[in-house]
């Protein structure tokens, strides 16, 4: 993150966010990262920050149903959109995809896991029966440093209505 020039003043504006169906209103620097607002102001720390520059996918959230990197999104530009975080996806108990991740043991340290689940949820909503190639393509923005890829692929495919 950039440190503003000495004495550089920030002008807060009112930003209204819709996160997991709830309304949140802030007086805030509109350029603050959505990831920080979710984590530090709303307390939704299930969204992780791994790189802060859009290169790892740990911070993925759904914006109007599509997975985006919340570390790259200025909070001002998220206003008026429907934001879903891992907490929102988990509100009514485990989803079949989360069950599948557990069953396939598709995680180790788990730091990438919320982002993986969010991205895969976005994929399965848009394309309920993705092929193996489509799963790999869609998940290529989510790094798993523990290297759980074969099991992540298996977990997602087990939720796909397709033939893989």
């Amino acid at each position, binding site marked *: 993150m950039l440190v503003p020039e000495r004495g550089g003043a920030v002008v807060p504006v009112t930003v209204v966010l819709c996160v997991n169906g709830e309304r949140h209103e802030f007086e805030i620097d509109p350029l603050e990262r959505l990831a920080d607002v979710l984590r530090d102001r709303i307390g939704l720390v299930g969204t992780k920050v791994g*790189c802060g520059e859009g290169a790892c996918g740990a911070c993925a959230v759904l914006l109007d149903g599509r997975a985006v990197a919340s570390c790259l999104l200025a909070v001002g530009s998220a206003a008026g959109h429907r934001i879903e975080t891992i907490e929102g996806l988990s509100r009514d108990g485990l989803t079949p995809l989360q069950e599948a991740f557990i069953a396939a043991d598709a995680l180790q340290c788990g730091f990438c896991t919320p982002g993986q689940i969010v991205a895969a949820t976005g994929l399965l909503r848009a394309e309920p029966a993705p092929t193996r190639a489509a799963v790999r393509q869609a998940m290529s923005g989510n790094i798993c440093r523990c290297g759980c890829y074969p099991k992540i692929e298996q977990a997602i495919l087990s939720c796909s209505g397709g033939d893989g």
Partner: protein
Amino acid sequence: MSTTRTRTPLVRGRVGELMPRRDAEPKVTGAFAYSSDLEAEGMLFAVTVRSPHPHARIAAIDTAAAVATAGVHAVLTHADVPGRKTVGMHRADQPVLVVDVVRYQGEPVVIVAADDLETARRAAVLVVVTYEVLEPVADPERGEVLRDVRIRHGDQSLGADVVVSGSYEVGMQDQAFLGPESGLAIPDGDGGVDLHVATQWLHLDQEQICAALDLPPAKVRVHLAGVGGAFGGREDVSMQIHACLLALRTGRPVKMVYTREESFFGHVHRHPAWMRYEHGATPEGDLVYVRAEILLDGGAYASSSPAVVSNAACFAAGPYRVQRATIDARVVMTNNPPCGAMRGFGAVQVAVAHEAQMDLLAAALGIDPVDLRVRNALKTGDRMITGQVIDGPAPVRELLEGLRAMPLPLERGSLRADLRELPGGVANTTHGEGVRRGVGYAIGFKNMGFAEGFDDYSTARVRVSLVNGEPLVEVHTAACEVGQGLVTVLEQIARTELGFEHVVVLPADTTVGSAGSSSASRQTWMTGGAVKAACEAVRERLHELAADRSVEETVEHHHRPTFPLDPETGQGDAQVALCFAAHRAVCDVDTDLGLVRVVEIATTQDVGRIMNPAQCEGQIQGGIAQGLGLALMEEIKTENGLVRNPNFTDYLIPTILDMPPVRLAISETPHPDAPYGLNGVGEPPTIASTPAIAAALRAATGRPVTRVPVRPDDLI
């Protein structure tokens, strides 16, 4: 009331059974609290001012403007470190905060705590450090030798008819754990502190914090927070002492979270290596001698370099019988980034060389590379080049033959293959023309645990009590779950030994004895062994269990002693146990552009005993992913001591698209010294996967491929 209970033999979740990892559910819902997720009432946020220069003398540090900033609570320098000014794993040579001379880029100089992160960052910018910039020592050939390991094994005059030689290089790899260094220090109001942190070895952190803060262990309690991966990079301290220092100074909880860029400067990396090898063999293909000169760049501080260079020397010849070995391995200190532990430390680097040499030798002899390896395979009863007789399992031949028997992936069909199946992928660089396939084999080995006489142990406290008439087993250790699945395996062990369904593994902290490090493939063996022994001790006393009386035992588990290497000859029984894995890589290479696609990795690994099948597979697949990264893309680039790519945009890590299917055959040859016969699992997959890929690329292109990560230019 005293009862004797019959233990139900059918409780589920015992050793060897499929059991979902205990922390899986909170991890998939986002509820699992990592070290970066913690908060406490009234906490401050802290940042680090780091040196932009790799080598400099500090003339002055002016903190006045930072101190005067509203919302800033502390701005500390080395002068504020009350105890020892330097710490370190093997030797205390690394300043907590730079005292006078900066020795690597990014070294911490000043720490700042403020009401919020933004204020802390702004104040950090106001700290003025005056540097007298010095010329960095960036060339390892000019580095000061930190440790030199000589091995002189067998008749040193032995020569051979067939001789091959080569020079090899391994780049500097980063652990790149996804959860950056972070933690929360909370002062107890009585001069002590509780630190919640992601680490690999709680007691080693505690020891170093105590030394720097001049506090007794009882005043510094270290608790494991959720760990976002480790791979060796969390063995040395990063922000631990800084956060405690600030918390004690301000009387407020202090949270510190590194950015990704800082993380590249915040931990040690895998040592880059330069290796010159010569192998001699009989015309029939029996290895006669191996000569090797190995140079590792340890960077600015010692860290675990002494152990890494020892491994590089001891495993330099690979898992082969050889009559004579002449190994000179040294690790030097420079002004490059400090290097230390990373998964497979020392063994990873030399495997790139010894396996390339075996292929060269096979070609010179006109023998199949796998046949040559099988012919020279170490087995139980053989001597390693350190003179140590292997008395545990050494299934080298079995692993190689098992691997060779595994089916190969299908040939690429027509020229009209799916782009995504080709090198270059959707970049549409080829439709199959110019693409050649290569197959390469490699095998590697490494020790489980620490070597050379280190008295390695772990401690477990197991307590059984009755809760509403039902037995509850509580397992308490200081062993760090870093993603390897330890908490689940410990639970399985307690259930197996005591037969009770309800087992809780308590959070790891320093209120129980040390468990040693979650590294060196040792934790399941060591802490698993401690938990097993503590359960056995509890079992003997279960007749005492009553509603108002629990049974508790604390046991230390030591492995058998090891011994130092002779300083002149490098001979000695330095290792506890050995673990082995073999890999076969199938790669497609676009020979016009030098682009690679790994089609499949097949592997055979002997794990002694499968404790948890899914986790065991996960360790193997994950280790292969990191081995693939080292083979093809992962490298910290330095230029005169400056890191050029401290971010995930320029430091490339394999994604799901890079990861090929893994064909896996796990064998179980029980290790007689280990609990349940298990063996280390975590490191072997990262050892031979890299050289197997390099071998496949040589086979596909006919190019020598002597350096990893391989660059496109090396392939065309």
